[in-house]
């Protein structure tokens, strides 16, 4: 069934968008990543203007994260002080990103920047994961030091102790300069505005491996940060860039909630290294497809569209 998206100004197949939502929800249920990195490229491949894809993705994540972060909150897994500092950073980064997106869109360069960022990010992450998971499967033995934070201090911890503005975060059992979570939040917020990703793939490993926070608290706190960052970015993308398509976001939310349940079911049956291989293949595949769109000559080098603004 075709649905006309009033902001994106194109007709899309509802079933296809539902499927995208379900696929992303499925991945997040299966391996615990948000999957925003997948939604944006899929929507762009379908013909949604990049700025609408990125903005509607932020709205979709705000919706999907609302339910999940409430559960984490109830379990007491949210470090509110850490979350608040991260949020200040990510609101600044996210707000700056929305204005940067606006500037780039006016010059007609936003699409280029998005695709470039995705190729680099997904290529690097996908290739790394692919190598790592193939190795794990070949060895059939637990990789040493993988998943177990070592006792040595990380470089980031040392920097965090040296920078001014020390605060302690009792819930996370860490003490560091306020600059570290501010900067981390800022980077992740900017990625939300420019790429439509939640940034969990950066936030979670940094907090677990480099800041040595307890995993349970990391999951809860990063979801808390994700919820309020994507919500603010979504409001700003609608306010400044007029780029949030409500129908698109709602259909994605519906699909992703169903998919999450499905993925969570399957994840208990599949071994962890296979799951990581699946994710690595998906990430790598999207990166390859992105490169293909860059090197394939367009059918028509000119294109007409109704402006988003």
């Amino acid at each position, binding site marked *: 069934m075709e649905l006309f998206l*009033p902001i994106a100004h194109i007709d899309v197949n509802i079933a296809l968008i539902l499927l995208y939502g379900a696929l992303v929800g499925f991945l997040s249920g299966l391996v615990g990543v948000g999957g925003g990195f997948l939604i944006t490229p899929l929507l762009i491949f379908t013909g949604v203007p990049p700025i609408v894809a990125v903005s509607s993705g932020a709205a979709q994540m705000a919706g999907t994260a609302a339910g999940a972060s409430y559960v984490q909150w109830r379990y007491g897994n949210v470090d509110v002080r850490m979350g608040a500092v991260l949020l200040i950073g990510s609101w600044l980064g996210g707000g700056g990103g929305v204005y940067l997106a606006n500037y780039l869109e006016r010059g007609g360069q936003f699409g280029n920047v998005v695709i470039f960022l995705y190729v680099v990010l997904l290529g690097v992450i996908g290739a790394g994961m692919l190598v790592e998971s193939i190795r794990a499967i070949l060895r059939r033995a637990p990789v040493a030091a993988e998943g177990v934070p070592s006792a040595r201090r990380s470089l980031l911890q040392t920097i965090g102790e040296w920078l001014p503005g020390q605060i302690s975060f009792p819930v996370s059992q860490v003490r560091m300069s306020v600059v570290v979570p501010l900067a981390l939040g800022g980077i992740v917020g900017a990625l939300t505005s420019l790429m439509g990703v939640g940034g969990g793939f950066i936030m979670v490993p940094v907090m677990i491996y480099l800041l040595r926070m307890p995993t349970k608290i990391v999951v809860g706190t990063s979801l808390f940060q994700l919820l309020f960052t994507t919500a603010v970015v979504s*409001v700003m993308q609608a306010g400044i860039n007029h780029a949030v398509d409500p*129908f698109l976001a709602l259909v994605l939310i519906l699909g992703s909630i169903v998919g999450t349940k499905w993925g969570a079911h399957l994840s208990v049956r599949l071994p962890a290294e296979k799951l990581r291989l699946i994710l690595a293949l998906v990430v790598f595949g999207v990166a390859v497809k992105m490169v293909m769109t860059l090197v394939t000559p367009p059918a028509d*080098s*000119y294109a007409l*569209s109704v402006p988003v603004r």
Partner: protein
Amino acid sequence: MRKALLWPAAVACALFAGASAGADSELVVVPETSHVDITPEFTGADIKAFGAMGVAGDLIIKVEGPEQRMTLSRQIRLGPFWIGGGRVRVTGAPGLLYLYATQPIASMLAPAEREKFGLLLEEVPVRIEPQLLADAAKDWRQAFFRLKEKENAYREDDRAITIYGNRLFVADIQLPGDLQVGTYNLETLLVKSGKVVDRHTSHFEVRQVGIERWVSSTARRSPWLFGLLFTLAAMLLGFALNVIFHR
């Protein structure tokens, strides 16, 4: 079903109007409907215009949509990559321009006459912004018309008008799914031996209805309020679905 009922009524209407107007006008045209409603499922509309002419001749019906501001972008080659190579805004051109006729227009009217009545697809006064050098602007203009014709928004058709008994006619106007909202002009010209002898103008309205209309007007008029309300709604929906599914 609705159309079957409207047919005779519209023809009668056109006849009556034609008879009463016959003294001072040779031509009358009535669109089947005064408005086309765009709903989320809208995939195009097929509307008929009925008319009568006092004397036998050839007909041209020009359907012209409201001005549509568009963005025209171009991809350029950079080494092995194809990347976005700039964009321009196109204003002043109608979103849709159909020239229906009973014969190819070129065989009916001289070019000067065609230009006078705006009957040349590629002579629409488009403005390209930002201002460019004449040569560069020409490339963009040509691309604009080529794309408009390719997506069937600008076209000439000499088979869409059917004449009955040299006096009555029906034009079959096929509107595409992505219609610009606004007033569409329907200008009918009666041509006899290379001259336009009469013209008649009528119009119909294309409007959005229901939630589609509310969404696009709110999103454009109060974008901040829309963003805030929609984001809150999305969060509530996500929360509610989560409660239902993961109980």
